[in-house]
């Protein structure tokens, strides 16, 4: 742990947390609608992975605000997307679940569970063909690890030695279904260990997530085929804003809240004497400013024009040829 790294980790996790708390607030106010899946509690995974896997391609699911922020997407463009505005990262057409930025090699934002995994495999195939060493990162939930697409993907990636990092974000629940009810393993790495090297890390500890991804990344960069990492973590909120999350006990929640990734990083850094409380207060102030600007930007941005509903179905060349 060093000062620069702590700063990065803390700042991004806090930014993610505050971003989502604001998003939740504006959902209640009616500025945001549809499905809003919050990452609160799981920030160490989003930030640790993206800080370590900083090149390559990223495929993710619908719970992706913090991952997108950690990848470098501007919070104000994400907030504007949540508000359904023209200035949003997907022009207000995708919403919370569909954040895309190919310039950052960030390909969604897929809301079909496990639907992004076969695409990640294809992308990894192409990267191998193109001699790109950085490879592909695909993150998915415990629920997704039960889907056929997941098993097909680990098989193909392993058979063809593709540069692909499977990252299982195990928060134990797929909406209201506990992983133990529908899978013979709660430890998801059991599903992959005959196919590729597997790693586990503490999904509530950003440093552990970071270090594990760095270690696993070497295998990919050396062309040795795919890897599988599992992080156990916990979402503090319901599955989405339309779920109260009543199926989980207070005690279970407390176990994880005691391990809160943001609070614990702060405590650890102060205890090690690397930085003091003041240092974090300054970062918090910076976060607050960025979030306020993001909300202001989103609120003041224009709505898309009706015509835009009919654009982007095809590329301009095709549109012209058709019309």
């Amino acid at each position, binding site marked *: 742990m060093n000062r620069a790294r702590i700063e990065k980790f803390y700042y991004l996790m806090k930014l993610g947390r505050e971003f989502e708390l604001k998003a939740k607030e504006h959902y209640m106010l009616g500025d945001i609608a549809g499905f809003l899946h919050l990452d609160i509690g799981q920030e160490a995974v989003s930030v640790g992975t993206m800080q370590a896997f900083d090149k390559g391609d990223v495929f993710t699911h619908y719970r992706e605000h913090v991952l997108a922020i950690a990848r470098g997407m501007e919070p104000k463009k994400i907030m504007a997307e949540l508000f359904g505005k023209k200035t949003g990262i997907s022009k*207000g*057409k995708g919403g919370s679940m569909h954040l895309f930025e190919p310039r950052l090699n960030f390909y969604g934002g897929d809301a079909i569970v496990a639907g992004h995994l076969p695409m990640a495999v294809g992308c990894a195939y192409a990267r191998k063909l193109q001699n790109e060493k950085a490879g592909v990162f695909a993150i998915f939930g415990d629920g997704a690890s039960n889907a056929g697409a997941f098993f097909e993907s680990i098989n193909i990636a392993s058979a063809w030695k593709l540069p692909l990092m499977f990252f299982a974000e195990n928060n134990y629940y797929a*909406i*209201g279904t506990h992983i133990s009810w529908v899978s013979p393993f709660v430890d998801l790495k059991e599903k992959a260990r005959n196919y590729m090297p597997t790693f586990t890390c503490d999904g509530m500890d950003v440093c552990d997530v970071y270090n594990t991804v760095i270690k696993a990344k070497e295998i990919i960069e050396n062309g040795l085929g795919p890897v599988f990492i599992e992080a156990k973590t916990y979402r503090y909120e319901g599955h989405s804003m339309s779920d109260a999350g009543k199926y989980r006990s207070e005690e279970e929640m407390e176990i994880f809240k005691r391990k809160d990734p943001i609070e614990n990083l702060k405590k650890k850094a102060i205890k090690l004497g690397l930085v003091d409380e003041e240092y974090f207060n300054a970062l918090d102030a910076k976060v607050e400013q960025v979030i306020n600007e993001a909300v202001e930007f989103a609120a003041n941005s224009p709505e898309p024009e009706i015509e835009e509903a009919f654009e982007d179905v095809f590329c301009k060349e095709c549109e012209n040829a058709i019309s």
Partner: protein
Amino acid sequence: MLYREALNKAIDECMENDESVVILGEDVGRYGGSYRVTEGLISKYGEKRVIDTPIAELSIVGNAIGMAIAGLRPIAEIMTVNFSLLAMDQIINHASKLRYMSGGKMTIPLVVRMPGGVSRQLAAQHSESYETLYASIPGLIVLTASNATYAYNALKWAIKSNDPVIFLEHELLYPMEMDFKEVKDFNPFRAEIVKEGKDLTILTYLKMRYDVIEAEKELKKAGIDAEIIDLNSLRPLDIDTIAKSIKKTKKCVIVEEDHKTGGMGAEVVSQIMENCFYDLDAPVLRIAGEDVPIPYNRKLELSTIPTPDKIVSKILDWKAKNGI
């Protein structure tokens, strides 16, 4: 009674009366169903008959077919129509064909229930109406439940039926309070005349029924006496009821939420051309979803599907254009 309660009542009664009825799907048991349709069933019938599955739609339907082969009467719940695309192989290559390709020896008493349609800003991967994908397949029965009475009676019929039924619901209907009636010897294949009229036939189904009812109030003010027909069954289609109405009104409009190209209206219009061509005073008007994926922004979202206002203005424009 709430629409979702009518569905629950139908399932509950079938499970009560017949031990071979089981229900399986994501979050149907302990969670109580993502739209609360299956609420309370697990405490009554236990987790062996109310089965929480993993997120594996192909298996949900495939397993249900296997259960049906073994003599159970499974109800497979798919959380949203979009996800049923993952199960299409089992539905189309297997469920719809087993009886036929076995020379009639196989029997698949299966119901696949799923909600679809534009709810509120759920965006492109959660808002589709894919009824024609199923309604174009021989060997499937495709029913749409727009109201509590049909939902209850038709679902009970479907569970007792010995052939695969695709049972389509709509996400916006679940919390709606509706009239409810138990009907003896219910026939799910009959279209419903929601309102009689003499000037114009409006065909519709699922949630669009309510938009059409809204629109009709405005049409009435404009002096148009419209007949509203809810198709109910999309496969087979009750062309007799449609034809009888068109014979009277000479004019027909179809209002549907799915995409216009290849949508349900396309098939309905084809059957009208074959059966009612000489009765018509004007070309049939299709008011349908636009041919674009569904966008997130509310204003854009509404611009891609019919609304009461749009239904009224499109009908008035069409009447003016055709001099009718």
